[in-house]
């Protein structure tokens, strides 16, 4: 065991820190220090500007191979980058659904033409990808989905019908990756295909709608006989094989639940800010709940535990001991930690907590964590069945 960083890793940290400090300040200045949420039309444009800055600095996808715009950083360097990114107050990544959810699947299942086309354009934020999995009647029970893709050999492509929903930032994206039923006789996990769909096709309607936090972060996507030709993308629009959609998609879910989407750096930075917030308010100590200090420390320790658990997981991964379904525990931990970090902050703010501000905004966003990426109830089922080995219903 050695919990220290190498000289090279420390040098990487210094380099990242300096770059972020300069470029974040420049980005904010370019937008008159009025940065809006990335889940609004205007804010999305600001955040695209930031994504392209990241790409130009080769920090958009540090762990990817250089040919796709990355710097082939190790998993350790990626963790360091994440720590520094959130420590510096870097904004949400509006490209995250492509980079963290689709890209791992493209690396694993994509053909060379797909990889060469999709990955660099995604890294450069030239193509913006959203996820099309959930449907009005297929949420936690994703395998009950009914969106159809019918084969049209004459025209050489697929005809899409049905509706997707809860598509994060769908109204701002131009491509969708999703699951469609390609075998009309099939049920459940069989007969599904993972398709890559440009959203500018005839017969596709995207309608944005507001989330609880007020942003237009959601969209529903309607397919009314939309025809997607096989050559809409180089290498084709099917990722993996026809009818293989379920197993292809599951490779993405473990990335989504696991640490790649929500790395410890994000929560350690929030915990440090929570400690600062408590310190700054403690001069009004007499009005605060005497138990608050204890809760602040508890949150800080839980973020620290996530960091340490991640060091263990990354080591295990590097040495061939796979975490497997353990990613469900990770999703439970970070999503519930995010809620409690923000709740504790709101309690420190007291009556001011109802005013709009970074903590109240962050709290509203945190409330979605136990729901998205597979609800925490489903994660507990998965953990109990696949890790503990309890019998299925």
């Amino acid at each position, binding site marked *: 065991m050695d919990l220290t960083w190498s000289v090279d890793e420390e040098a990487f940290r210094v380099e990242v820190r300096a770059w972020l400090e300069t470029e974040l300040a420049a980005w904010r200045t370019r937008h008159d220090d009025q940065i809006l949420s990335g889940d609004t039309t205007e804010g999305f444009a600001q955040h695209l500007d930031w994504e392209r800055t990241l790409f130009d600095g080769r920090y958009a996808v540090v762990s990817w191979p250089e040919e796709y715009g990355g710097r082939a950083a190790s998993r350790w360097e990626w963790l360091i980058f994440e720590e520094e990114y959130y420590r510096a107050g870097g904004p949400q990544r509006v490209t995250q659904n492509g980079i963290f959810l689709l890209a791992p699947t493209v690396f694993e299942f994509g053909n060379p033409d797909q990889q060469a086309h999709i990955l660099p354009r995604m890294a450069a934020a030239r193509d913006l990808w959203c996820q099309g999995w959930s449907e009005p009647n297929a949420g936690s029970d994703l395998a009950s989905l009914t969106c159809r893709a019918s084969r049209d050999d004459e025209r050489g492509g697929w005809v899409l019908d049905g509706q997707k929903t809860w598509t994060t930032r769908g109204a701002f994206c131009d491509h969708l990756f999703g699951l469609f039923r390609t075998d009309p006789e099939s049920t459940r996990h069989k007969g599904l295909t993972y398709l890559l769909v440009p959203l500018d096709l005839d017969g596709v309607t995207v309608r944005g709608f507001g989330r609880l936090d007020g942003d237009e972060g959601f969209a529903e996507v309607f397919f009314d006989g939309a025809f997607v030709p096989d050559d809409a993308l180089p290498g084709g629009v099917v990722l993996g094989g026809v009818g293989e959609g379920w197993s292809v998609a599951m490779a993405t879910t473990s990335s989504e639940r696991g640490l790649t989407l929500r790395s410890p750096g994000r929560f350690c930075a929030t915990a440090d800010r929570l400690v600062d917030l408590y310190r700054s308010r403690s001069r009004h100590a007499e009005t605060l709940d005497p138990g608050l*200090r204890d809760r602040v420390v508890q949150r800080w320790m839980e973020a620290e535990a996530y960091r340490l*658990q991640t060091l*263990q997981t990354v080591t295990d991964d590097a040495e061939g001991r796979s975490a497997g379904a353990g990613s469900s*525990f990770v999703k439970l931990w970070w999503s519930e930690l995010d809620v409690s970090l923000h709740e504790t902050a709101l309690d420190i703010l007291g009556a001011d907590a109802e005013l709009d501000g970074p903590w109240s905004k962050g709290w509203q966003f945190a409330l979605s964590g136990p729901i998205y990426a597979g609800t925490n109830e489903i994660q507990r*089922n998965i953990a109990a069945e696949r890790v503990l080995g309890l019998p*299925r*219903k």
Partner: protein
Amino acid sequence: MRFAFSDDQLAFRDAVADLLSKECTPEVVRAAWPDGTDGHGARKGEGARAATERVGAVWSALADMGVLGIAVSEANGGLAMTELDWVLLAEETGRHALPHPFVETACVVAPLLDSIGDADEVLGGLVDGSRQAGTMVLGSTNVAWGDSVTYLVDLNLESGVEGRWLARRVKGGLAVGDGPDSRRTLADSVDAGRHVVRLGAWETGSELATGPDAERAFDRGALATAAQLVGLSSRMLDLTVSYVAERRQFGVPVGSQQAVKHKLADVAMKLRFAAPAVYAAAWSMSGGSPEASRSVSTAKALASDAARLAVANCLQCHGAIGYTVEYDLHLYLKRAEALSRAWGDAAWHRRRVAVTLGI
């Protein structure tokens, strides 16, 4: 960066685990409960008499393996291992609810005397298994296995969480002499297997150590106890998972019900995030990190809370069978409850972390 134990560390752990699973079975843990009845007339240790002689044999077997001298220098007959080398062994002693003062003897007092000098010439006995050491921690006068310890150390802060640490030898009165003393009456305690003696009269001798040496002794005790709590929690979880997979109601295993699954998933999750904190604290201590105390307190707080959740949820998922003396769960459950508060409870350790965070 590498967060994993070495092959040697894992091999030693496996050897100790193997010994304890053979020699420290639930029957042996029960045998450590005092015979007879408690103050209310209930029999505490069902089946206890069968294996009484095996209780002492476990300690001798650990001494023979060198386990009692793990943290003692080779010059004093030990294995000169670091906290990182022994943390997994402590976890195993927890998993098997070892009914002996392993933490106090092997993890705290022996390495303390090894580093500050063994003026009372007891170290050899601690290492060869002929003596057991005890501790009184943070002002408590409860001494675990107080009927058999023959060297007792008081570890305390002079004042509050930010005070100076002090380690003093305790002797005289009904406290601790050179041999086990029958006048040291066992207190009625929830986990009777811990043989708690509540000291009524004693003299504190001269200071053994102050400041960092004394604090390190305390940190070793808290770390080893946190590791035991991880082992105990995982034992309780294993027992419960096996039980709910077998037990059928309404025509299905009770473990197929979501209400049961979710309770056990919560235990497993807490444990999964507490254990790395314990291992990281061991690493911090063995490298002399300036943040070692904060790491230890983080570990003890997280492990105590994980164990408390394991106690509650594992008992609940068993239903009535878990509430019996015949079934083994209570052996681990009661030990976990006691250890969650020993060496500073979760709230005490959070206060200590708060100070290091400047709040």
